């Protein structure tokens, strides 16, 4: 997944304007025997994510440093998609995702970070052909990422981190509400973060899911490198 973030010096409402662009590249493999034959699109390009944001660096909460950001993300249906495949890199619909993120330093060593999203999806008017539907619309959702971080050594932080998703409206199929289709998932796991230099950061984490409803359950492991030009 390739991402480019630019924080401008120009300010609005006391915060710095910025822009965020993200392009996922995926490789999919899988097998199964339930329902229609499992087919995965071999294409690799996912949906482009773009969003303007405002980032505040110099605020305080209860006298402690408090960094915060609001962003309005748009997930564009630019990813590769073919309705003959069950699984595709692209979703063939638009998604609007405003979010609020913050990091609060309770002490110089201990901090907590949260990112809280609301998700609205438009219709996919070309769904998986085996479903025989004209259009599908995933319901609205609320989800957040959380992290409790501690600096064990200089520039090295360990954390307990995870996420929670709660779909708040049912999916629609052919304009009709599909009852009991709301998804839910909670995840937690360890994470580490190393500021290798003032301009280069590394992160590694793994998270296990639980309390899952209407969706698959599993594990995600993520490695992240960030370079500040």
């Amino acid at each position, binding site marked *: 997944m390739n991402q480019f*973030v630019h924080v401008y010096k120009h300010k609005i409402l006391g915060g710095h304007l910025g822009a965020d662009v993200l392009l996922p590249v995926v490789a999919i493999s899988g097998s199964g025997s339930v*329902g229609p034959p499992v087919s995965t699109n071999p294409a690799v390009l996912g949906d482009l994510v773009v969003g303007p944001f405002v980032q505040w660096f110099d605020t305080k909460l209860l006298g402690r440093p408090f960094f915060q950001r609001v962003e309005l993300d748009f997930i564009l249906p630019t990813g590769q998609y073919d309705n003959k495949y069950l699984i595709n890199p692209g979703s063939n619909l638009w998604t609007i995702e405003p979010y609020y993120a913050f990091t609060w330093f309770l002490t110089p060593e201990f901090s907590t970070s949260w990112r809280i999203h609301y998700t609205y999806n438009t219709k996919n008017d070309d769904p998986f052909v085996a479903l025989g*539907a004209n259009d599908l619309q995933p319901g609205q959702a609320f989800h957040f990422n959380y992290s409790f971080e501690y600096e064990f050594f200089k520039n090295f932080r360990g954390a307990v981190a995870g996420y929670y998703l709660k779909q708040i409206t049912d999916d629609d199929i052919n304009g009709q509400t599909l009852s009991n289709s709301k998804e839910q998932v909670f995840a937690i796991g360890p994470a580490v973060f190393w500021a290798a230099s003032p301009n280069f950061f590394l992160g590694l984490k793994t998270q296990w899911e639980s309390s899952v409803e209407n*969706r698959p359950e599993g594990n*995600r492991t993520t490695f992240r490198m960030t370079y500040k030009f």
Partner: protein
Amino acid sequence: MRKTISVPLLAALLFGVAGTPSFAFNQPPLNLGLTDILDGAFPAPGPTSPSTSRRTRRTNSRTMTGTPSPGTRRSPTCFR
């Protein structure tokens, strides 16, 4: 309606679509745990280039009540 499509739906859900590839009858790729540590504090003004690799492995599918879906244990894997 729900009953007639639930089997293909669950088969699709099995493949770990959120945050990775997408099946239309599910949430699209979302930021589920992709960013967390110090997430509220982007680096100082200027350009930044984060690069993220994620492996998602699905081993089970859950129904609306949270119980395992019968016959759906698989080992799908996704990289991005």
